[in-house]
């Protein structure tokens, strides 16, 4: 059965740390960084990379267009 | 034709793209004439009856923001409703023509002619530091000519232009020669003349934005200074005035619009009696012919300002005369028009003072 592996690239400086992506992710991939960007926001990051299936749910709900999602098919 | 009808015909011939208005006496013939002619079938000009004067002026904002030749017309109470929009238009530097066929106020007032919107027109009826080029026609011919001129000035300076008439000029019938017909401009021509217009973003360029918002005080001051520089340029270039028998005059009557016609009659009576009286008629109320009046104040014995108001333009005449000559005032209020005899009587009072 084909399986997908995905990854999320976060535009750290654009992120405002609203956490909507964290709530939207069905696989618990995302969490918030303990570091802040230059605007003082804790930004989103992948905390469970292997679980990402590249569904882009995080990207759709992100209000600031910070997230770029890739996915690759594995046999 | 009627003065109001002349505006409609002249607008079409000036290549007007759109008229947006709301009926109000005594200027409803402007839209009625347009609706009867149906210019959308010939030149493609849009004519729309809006839900209010507030909507009309904001339709004008929208159209003007696209670099289109657009206009509205109304009468005093309706023009009051438009003041917010006019302020936004002035700040966003949008060219357009606004016609006010004045009636007696304040309030709902009367439908009879008045000139009591002078302050509102030339001192900024809306909020903020702005000016309107204000043209004051005194005949049906000038209603037509000034409509065409108003569009030219509006686009030359990217600024709203007010045509300030009154109920009598709007309703009176006279012979008129209409201005030469100009075609409406194509989108490409508008893009060339108005590179700021919102006609759709140009490829490879940033989008155009029409706005009057500048939250930073420094930016807002810069925008104000830009406006003031433009107003200074207009004041230098665009003052228009008619002088009648002023060259040897001992006394000068100052009046605009309908009042100037009545006063001309009184001046002719005075001349027939051997009295050296002249008439100065400001055609632009803003910019105001301050220098012309100052010059006359320095070599005459007295001035009489006649208005259909409690005395509004007289303040600008007195500022121009700067105490050099006695400036008296005669006016009728609330829609009453003085007779030439009343002006003659006021002149006698001035001369015997």
């Amino acid at each position, binding site marked *: 059965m084909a399986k997908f592996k995905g*990854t999320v690239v976060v535009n750290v400086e654009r992120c405002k740390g609203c*956490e*909507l992506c964290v709530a939207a992710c069905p696989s618990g991939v995302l969490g918030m960084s303990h570091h802040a960007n230059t605007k003082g926001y804790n930004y989103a990051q992948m905390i469970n990379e292997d679980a990402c299936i590249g569904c882009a749910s995080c990207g759709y*709900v992100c*209000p*600031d267009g910070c997230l770029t999602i*890739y996915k690759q098919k594995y046999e | 034709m009627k003065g109001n009808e002349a505006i409609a015909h002249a607008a079409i011939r000036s290549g007007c793209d759109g008229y947006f208005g709301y009926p109000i006496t005594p200027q409803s013939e402007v839209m009625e004439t347009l609706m009867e002619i149906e210019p959308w079938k010939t030149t493609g000009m849009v004519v729309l009856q809006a*839900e209010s004067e507030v909507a009309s002026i904001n339709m004008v904002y929208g159209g003007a923001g696209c670099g289109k030749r657009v206009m509205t017309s109304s009468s005093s109470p309706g023009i009051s409703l438009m003041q917010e929009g006019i302020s936004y238009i002035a700040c966003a530097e949008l060219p357009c023509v606004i016609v006010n066929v004045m009636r007696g106020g304040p309030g709902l007032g009367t439908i009879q002619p008045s000139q009591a919107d002078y302050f509102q027109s030339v001192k900024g009826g809306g909020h903020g530091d702005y000016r309107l080029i204000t043209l004051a026609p005194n005949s049906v011919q000038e209603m037509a000519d000034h409509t065409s001129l108003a569009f030219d000035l509006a686009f030359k300076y990217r600024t709203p232009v007010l045509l300030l008439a009154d109920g009598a000029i709007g309703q009176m019938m006279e012979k008129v020669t209409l201005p030469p017909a100009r075609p409406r401009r194509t989108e490409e021509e508008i893009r060339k003349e108005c590179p700021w217009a919102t006609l759709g*973003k140009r490829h490879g360029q940033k989008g155009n934005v029409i*706005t009057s918002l500048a939250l930073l005080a420094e930016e807002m001051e810069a925008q104000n200074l830009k406006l003031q520089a433009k107003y200074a340029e207009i004041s230098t270039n665009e003052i228009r005035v008619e002088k009648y028998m002023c060259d040897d005059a001992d006394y000068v009557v100052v009046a605009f619009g309908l009042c100037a016609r009545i006063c001309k009659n009184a001046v002719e009576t005075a001349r027939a009696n051997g009295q050296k009286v002249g008439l100065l008629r400001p055609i632009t109320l803003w910019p105001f012919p301050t220098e012309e009046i100052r010059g006359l104040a320095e070599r005459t014995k007295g001035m009489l300002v006649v208005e259909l108001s409690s005395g509004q333009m007289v303040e600008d005449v007195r500022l121009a005369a700067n105490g050099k000559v006695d400036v008296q005032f005669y006016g009728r209020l609330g829609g009453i028009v003085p007779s030439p005899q009343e002006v003659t009587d006021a002149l006698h009072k001035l001369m015997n003072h």
Partner: protein
Amino acid sequence: MNNEIAKPENLVYTKTPVLNDVPMHYCPGCSHGVVHKLIAEVIDEMGIQETAIGIAPVGCAVFAYKYIEIDWQQAAHGRAPALATAIKRLMPNKTVFTYQGDGDLAAIGTAETIHACNRGENIAIIFINNGIYGMTGGQMAPTTLEGMKTSTCPYGRNPEINGYPLNITKLVAELEGTRYVTRQAVHTVAAVRKAKKAIRKAFEYSMEGKGTSFVEIVSTCNSGWKLSPVQSNKWMEENMFKAYPLGDFKDR
């Protein structure tokens, strides 16, 4: 991040360039951002970046023109439909839309909204309803729910004092001039996808000359509501959707 996967041929989703790189001034988690993004995506996908003209309102979205890279006009409070009317009538070949909040569209601009819809202007109206005045600091909106607290109804909206919440979308659906009237939200992936389809339909319809399209997006204002963005979505589902249920009112 997995560099093996992050390659152009594996791209699934990224910000459209029509939404430019200027950081949006909205509060973290604000629905405005999602809707801006959807409009930008629709403009991109329809290929209308050079023929679309947007009208920005007064309110939080006053700066919409800074973020979506098209030609914009910024209207006086409530007057966006009047501007759009003139622009569309003067240039029927352009895609003209307004973007308005509940105060702008349903309070001060009610007359312009109703009459533009009633004339059947061929424009798209995008209406953000979060039941509160965000920009001015959380005052009561025409759409504020009964009992909902705002800074100008601090004990909750009381119809005896404040009148009732205005369901303007239901109202415009009654008008002959409207062709498409729908109410959407952007709180979940599924909702976002549906809202985007609605916006696209509204934009497409506006070019067909058959009347006004009106898309309400029930939205959150977490700053005004004094909740976190995630809590706001939940509160919206539990409260706003009762008064403002999602779905199409009209599509003809």
